[in-house]
């Protein structure tokens, strides 16, 4: 890694903590329904919405009520996105006159955006009308993120409360997440992105005269170039902030209109992790012990940073195949060097590696370089980050509740080892909690590995693999790892816009979002119902460095044990092929 690369990585991490802390404190005020500086403007809007929707702001619900609310709301969102795509050719704001999206692709995309995955089988600038992008995709970018944050708020209340069935009100947490947190952040960020060159308009695509004509394969000279337009900045801001990741354009944030400068890139990378990191501190404040939030944050950072360094080192090392052709891959003040296939010059290797690891750590899934063209070790890091279950920062809300489930498992295993009753934050951890936690941890690998196997055994699954050999296997493993963890990034060589990948991928996304959210709420309900257990001599403190290390070990062990054989067949074999 280069000296400048190290500086950029350190600066990124420092900025993340410096901005995550105040945001975390602000979000705690939002979820505790305390007054914020935005109340004078947003308070009346909020109260008006509750009146319109018939929501009693003083009424809380148990876990079942909240789970039903979540499912009904998300099902409606799914239907709207599906309908918009199927009917976009009949609707306004379609200057490129795109036709209706196919049923299987519409299903996949509707699930994808409702479930906060934002896997994209389609290319934005060649498929979706501006109306679909705005009313369908941008809206889901907000509310799917707010859904995850609402579930987290309910879960954390479950941890903070005792002897009650009530966790809070999903409608209120959903509304406040959207209005007070996501909307103001997205607005400021979107305008900032435009200042850097991200497009924001409703014009049709522009045609410009090329300086030098381009001759195509048939010998025909092209005299013009098409410049895509659209309301891109408003969608990009929220897709970065809400761990959505679905690009306005096909190549996502590698596209110069989506991520034009190193500065826009820095803030887009920061936005990937900002809310997930901030929520760690929100959690600490809500359970009245900020050390608990720091401990979870520390565990996440301690897993991410070494893997980030590994990926950056691997990409900076370059491709031995190119080295054999006498290509200069050495970093210098005049060139980024390294493995530049699929990477942009303005971003280089360091920023591509930071982004790749951040986007797979958080379940964001946006990309600023093509992961399919990463070196085997770099690609393995992105796969592994997702296979940890998207708990290292993870999706907004969902990452932290996933990590807190691992905390419960860690407390339980430690309790078994020393023969004490395990407790977490004054709650006894008993059989029901462990059943739910095991369910949460086991569903993901079953989905991912099961569907990968199915794809490899079927003609339809193998037909659209792009890269030969072990790398082709990695493409399929990546696809289901990504969809099975609501990530959304891809080894994009795989032809995923087929009925096979659209349907099975849609099912994987449904399972990983809703089959996990519901047991999470059940777990929260059970924890809230328990009597307070005061700390005793045998209570394992969960804010110490020792516990953080233990938590990391549990997370890695579960992640590594499930997926090591699959990784061995893909990137590890490829690495050995390439270097031996």
């Amino acid at each position, binding site marked *: 890694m280069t000296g*400048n690369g190290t500086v*950029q990585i350190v600066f990124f991490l420092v900025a993340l903590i410096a901005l995550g802390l105040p945001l975390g404190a602000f979000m705690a005020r939002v979820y505790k329904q305390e007054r914020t500086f935005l109340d004078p403007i947003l308070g009346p809007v909020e109260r008006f919405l509750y009146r319109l929707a*018939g929501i009693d702001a003083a009424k809380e619900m148990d876990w079942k009520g909240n789970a*039903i609310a979540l499912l009904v*709301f998300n099902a*409606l969102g799914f239907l*709207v996105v599906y309908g918009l795509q199927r009917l976009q050719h009949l609707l306004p704001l379609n200057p490129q006159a795109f036709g209706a999206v196919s049923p299987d692709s519409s299903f996949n995309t509707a699930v994808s955006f409702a479930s906060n995955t934002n896997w994209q089988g389609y*290319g934005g600038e060649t498929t979706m009308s501006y109306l679909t992008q*705005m*009313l369908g995709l941008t*809206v889901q970018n907000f509310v799917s993120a707010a859904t995850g944050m609402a579930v987290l708020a309910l879960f954390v209340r479950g941890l903070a409360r005792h002897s009650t069935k009530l966790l809070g009100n999903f409608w209120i947490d*959903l*509304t406040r997440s959207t209005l007070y947190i996501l909307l103001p952040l997205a*607005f400021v960020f979107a*305008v900032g992105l*435009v200042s850097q*060159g991200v*497009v*924001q*308009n*409703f014009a049709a695509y522009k045609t*410009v005269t090329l*300086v*030098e004509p381009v001759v*195509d394969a048939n010998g025909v000279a092209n005299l013009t*170039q098409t*410049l895509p337009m659209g*309301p891109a900045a*408003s*969608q990009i801001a*929220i897709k970065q902030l809400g761990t959505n990741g679905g690009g306005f*354009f096909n*190549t996502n944030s*590698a*596209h110069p209109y989506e991520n*034009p*400068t190193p500065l826009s890139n*820095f803030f887009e990378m920061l936005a990937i992790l900002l809310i997930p990191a901030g929520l760690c501190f929100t959690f600490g404040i809500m359970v009245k012990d900020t050390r608990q939030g720091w401990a979870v944050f520390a565990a996440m950072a301690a897993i991410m940073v070494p893997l980030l360094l590994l990926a950056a080192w691997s990409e900076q090392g*370059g491709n031995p195949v190119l080295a054999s*052709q*006498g*290509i*200069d891959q050495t970093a210098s*003040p*005049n*060139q980024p060097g*390294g*493995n530049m*296939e*699929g*990477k942009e*010059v*303005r971003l280089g290797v360091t920023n591509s590696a930071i982004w790749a690891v951040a986007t797979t750590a958080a379940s964001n899934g946006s990309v600023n370089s*093509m992961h399919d*063209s990463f070196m085997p070790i770099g690609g393995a890091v992105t796969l592994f980050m997702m296979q940890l279950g998207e708990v290292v920062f993870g999706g907004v809300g969902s990452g932290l509740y996933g990590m807190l489930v691992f905390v419960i498992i860690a407390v339980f295993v430690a309790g078994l080892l020393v023969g004490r009753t395990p407790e977490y934050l004054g709650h006894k951890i008993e059989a029901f909690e462990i059943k739910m936690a095991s369910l949460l941890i086991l569903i993901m690998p079953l989905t991912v590995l099961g569907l990968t196997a199915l794809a490899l055994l079927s003609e339809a699954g193998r037909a659209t693999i792009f*890269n*030969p*050999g072990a790398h082709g296997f990695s493409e399929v493993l990546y696809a289901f790892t990504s969809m099975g963890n609501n990530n959304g990034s891809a080894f*994009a060589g795989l032809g995923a816009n087929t009925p096979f990948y659209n349907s099975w991928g849609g099912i994987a996304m449904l399972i990983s979002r809703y089959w996990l959210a519901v047991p999470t709420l059940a777990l929260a309900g059970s924890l809230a119902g328990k009597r307070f257990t005061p700390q005793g001599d045998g209570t394992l403190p969960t804010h110490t460095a020792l516990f953080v290390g233990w938590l990391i070990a549990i997370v890695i062990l579960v992640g590594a044990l499930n997926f090591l054989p699959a990784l061995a067949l893909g990137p590890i074999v*490829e690495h050995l092929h390439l270097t031996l």
Partner: protein
Amino acid sequence: MIAFLRPALVLLLAFTAITGVLYPLAVTGTAQLFFPSAANGSVLERNGTAVGSKLIGQQFSGARYFWSRLSATGPVPYNGAASSGSNYGPMHPALLEAVKGRIAQLRTADSTTTRPIPVDLVTASGSGLDPHISVAAALYQAPRIARQRGATEADLRALIDRHTDKRDFGFLGEPGVNVLELNLALDEKFPSSKGGM
């Protein structure tokens, strides 16, 4: 269940209005007011004709111009309407073919420059629309352009430096030479062609 439908429907409609209509409109209004050029694609004009965008690369293959990176868009390189990377894994045979083909083109266009070729000049970018090449890739091409345009290499080094987007704040990102801007400046400053190679 019905009790859940009303809040779900009303909130979804309200958020559609707020985040799907008002929010993009507010961003568009603000953007068009304060950053009109950027919001509309950073288009570059020459003699009143739009000749491209500062942010979107173009294909150059004549010996008189600095070449951009390889582009994997179809059916032609640098197709702004359909961004795409190559998605070649490091061992894909077509990656090696593409690199070898590019080396041959560069060597044919200038047989006198024999030092190692900078990696960004033989690889395809992620978007297929990368507006930049590295400073090293521009300097590598300078001797060829100098001969073609009747300029000195020192002239070109100065021109390259003027069209290099430096790291933001001196440390963020990587420096890159904007190929379209550089070539437009080249046409303006050194329009004469000294004939073939």
